[in-house]
């Protein structure tokens, strides 16, 4: 469902007014629905530099039923058909001169991009490039992609994936995600893959079939959307929220055939209690989503200890403690487990009045980075998702002006929906996402904050 402004801007009179006044013209984003093709149009795949990924990319896309065109036809415009996506393989850049190829390929291709189109650039990671010239060229991709994301209109996005040597196997799931409607509100992001044993998803329509997923804070808002999407993708969801939210929690669990667990995640025995339940009832857990979070805003000088402590306890300490309890208990985390921790844009950009919240959410980013190697040893992953402005009950309570500005200051010119965060989390939870570990993915429409 689009917000009022998006609906207005796309109405007859709204179109005229917004065009004349030069107001933002947000469009309704292409969002994933089961059964939907990966892309609504063909993809053109080009390269700059040597490009070692074209065959992989082409194979994955053909497998997904997407028509792959070569740059020659893109340039000449064979039939003028609008493109669903443009993929640039920029691996093997040796120096800035190679970047000219990126320009040559992208400029004409972007002209043919349809609305809610996708631009994806694949490159080598800038770190350990071997020479300053190589490093410069690789790092240049960062500025290039972020700028394309800002130039695109009509709900289109641009993102980059850094693929280290040996991590080619890890590319399929991120490639599908970034081109699909699942990544509707992920824009201007740079993701770095790692080498891993990558299992195939059992079924692209039900990638989480047979999995058990626990979601904290599932009674409403983003958590309820996560529970729904994980269930749609095939998981049995154990929905956790505070006892006082039990009525809504039961409704969420019953709507998706899940299980409701009333538990305050900050309770002293929360970890053991959850572990006990997951082991006894479900034989362990495959996916853990730490979503529960609270805000207790005040300027730092006015903030009492209670505000500080409660935010830290829910948003950060509980994630640490419960994850540790799961790691410690034999058989609690099933092989190939996926942990996804909800951070926030405030944890990246900071926010006035949110020292406690921003500190807790930044802490989450540090936590997943530090834990990634240990999880990799178990063939598991731990990642964070940092939502930007997401339209929920929480944001509905904001003053009108704050809310309107908050939702417009991003490249997609609109707020995201809970389902956008949920889709990203569901993707990170897939078996095939084994090569994404220790990362923080922003779901913010390329927000200007902290960019």
């Amino acid at each position, binding site marked *: 469902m689009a917000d009022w402004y998006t609906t207005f801007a796309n109405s007859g009179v709204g179109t005229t007014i917004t065009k004349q006044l030069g107001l933002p013209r947000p469009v309704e984003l292409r969002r994933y629905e089961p059964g939907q093709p990966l892309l609504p149009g063909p993809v053109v795949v080009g390269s700059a530099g040597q490009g070692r990924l074209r065959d992989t990319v082409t194979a994955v896309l053909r497998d997904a039923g997407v028509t792959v065109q070569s740059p020659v036809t893109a340039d000449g415009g064979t039939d003028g058909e609008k493109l669903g996506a443009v993929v640039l393989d920029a691996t093997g850049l040796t120096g800035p001169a190679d970047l000219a190829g990126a320009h040559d390929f992208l400029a004409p291709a972007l002209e043919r991009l349809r609305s809610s189109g996708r631009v994806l650039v694949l490159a080598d990671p800038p770190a350990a490039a071997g020479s300053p010239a190589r490093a410069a060229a690789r790092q240049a991709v960062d500025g290039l992609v972020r700028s394309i994301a800002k130039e695109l209109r009509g709900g289109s996005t641009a993102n980059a994936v850094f693929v280290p040597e040996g991590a080619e196997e890890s590319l399929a799931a991120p490639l599908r995600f970034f081109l699909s409607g699942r990544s509707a509100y992920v824009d201007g992001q740079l993701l770095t893959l790692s080498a891993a044993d990558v299992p195939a998803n059992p079924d692209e329509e039900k990638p989480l079939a047979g999995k058990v997923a626990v979601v904290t804070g599932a009674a409403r808002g983003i958590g309820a959307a996560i529970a729904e999407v994980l269930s749609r993708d095939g998981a049995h969801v154990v929905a956790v929220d505070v006892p006082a939210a039990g009525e809504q929690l039961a*409704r969420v669990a019953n709507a998706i055939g899940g299980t409701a667990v009333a538990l305050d995640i900050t309770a002293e025995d929360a970890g053991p209690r959850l572990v006990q339940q997951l082991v006894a009832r479900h034989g362990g857990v495959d996916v853990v989503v730490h979503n529960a979070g609270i805000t207790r805003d005040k300027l730092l000088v006015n903030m009492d200890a209670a505000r500080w402590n409660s935010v830290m306890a829910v948003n950060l300490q509980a994630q640490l403690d419960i994850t540790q309890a799961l790691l410690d208990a034999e058989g609690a985390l099933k092989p190939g487990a996926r942990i996804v921790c909800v951070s926030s844009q405030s944890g990246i950009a900071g926010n006035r009045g949110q020292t406690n919240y921003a500190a807790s959410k930044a802490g989450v980013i540090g936590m997943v980075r530090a834990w990634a190697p240990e999880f990799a040893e178990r063939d598991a992953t731990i990642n964070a998702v940092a939502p930007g402005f997401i339209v929920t009950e929480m944001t509905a309570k904001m003053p009108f002006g704050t809310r309107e500005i908050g939702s417009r200051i991003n490249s997609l010119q609109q707020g995201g929906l809970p389902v956008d965060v949920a889709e990203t989390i569901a993707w990170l939870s897939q078996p095939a996402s084994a090569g994404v570990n220790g990362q923080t993915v922003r779901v913010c429409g390329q927000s200007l904050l902290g960019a």
Partner: protein
Amino acid sequence: MAQSQQPATRKAAIVGGNRIPFARSNSAYAQASNQDMLTATLDGLVARFGLQGESVGEVVAGAVLKHARDFNLTRESVLGSKLAATTPAYDVQQACGTGLEAAILVANKIALGQIESGIAGGVDTTSDAPLAVSEDLRRVLISLNGAKTVQERLKALARIRPGMIAPEMPRNAEPRTGLAMGDHAAITAAEWEIGREEQDELAARSHRSMAAAYDRGFFDDLVTPFLGLTRDNNLRPDSSVEKLATLKPVFGTGEGATMTAGNSTPLTDGASAVLLASDEWAEAKGLPVLAHLVDAQTAAVDYVHGGEGLLMAPVYAVPVLLARNGLTLQDFDFYEIHEAFASTVLATMKAWEDPAFCKEKLGLDAPLGSIDRSKLNVHGSSLAAGHPFAATGGRIVASLAKMLHEAGPGKRGLISICAAGGQGVVAILES
């Protein structure tokens, strides 16, 4: 010759329970019907145990105060719930014993192998209680309904007199004596010389114990909030003997009156449900077995002509149950004696300690003896939670099963519930 096949019996497992917080009459649930509350309670149970779309063997529940439209209350609630529509259901009613009796019925069918799983429940509302019209008005309305012409209708309506309009409010009174249940309990309290202070002590302890249990999260997986209520709104965590001592007696008469609104249960709305199953069913579903329902017994007393107190039937039921199971009254780790009135609990225990009563009335050689008070209603009971008649049994069964489970294997608990009509229902649970 064909041998009669005695079905092998097994003990039914208690898997868990759910209830909505109990609400004092005409408060949070004033607009909720029995069906609303029972359906929400079933749905909370379904969510807790992942039973969406499942068909359980049978759902057995009831209400003491029931509208005529609720003739098929339990089945209608099942149809409105997330359970499979193919789940059979029936209603039972044994006054305040309804909830426990429902659990016994489900457990017995499981024991006989007739069903593998079942839900026992109960619900009551004193806010949305059926309202009766006076007998005169009822006759007029019936003839109005039968009238065929406008004239006939007007004639029928003309017979209505202002005096007929006042509705007959439901009363918590015994039909055969006309006395309120509290008045009956007051007679027993006087007979057994139950003092005011010990009643207030029991009441204060009930409130404080239940509040503490809530605080430590004991009810997290036993209660699901409803209509914004997250805890029983009768609960007074700061209850004290001093505060209770200030209340005026409401039952009994004169100097000796000891029973107040503080040491008697208020009229309450609420619902509860318990999931029972065979061990195999629970195991196959990965669900816990908190305890087993070992045995149960009912009894009734002649409170009209026989000189026995209205609420004393459990006193008679327990020794029968103990004898059949080769147990003494002291062989239990927890006692759940329903607090209809504080004085009822105290009179019950006093009777078991009394050599003369035990010999003459119960026919025992020796008194059953006393019970360790620290094992009695350890997480509070009806004085704290309130008492929606048919829902109390389910509250107690689920809570006791969880307490036994927490205490470890081989622990035993005794449930004793008194009921209107001079009846009592008692049961043994074991972890």
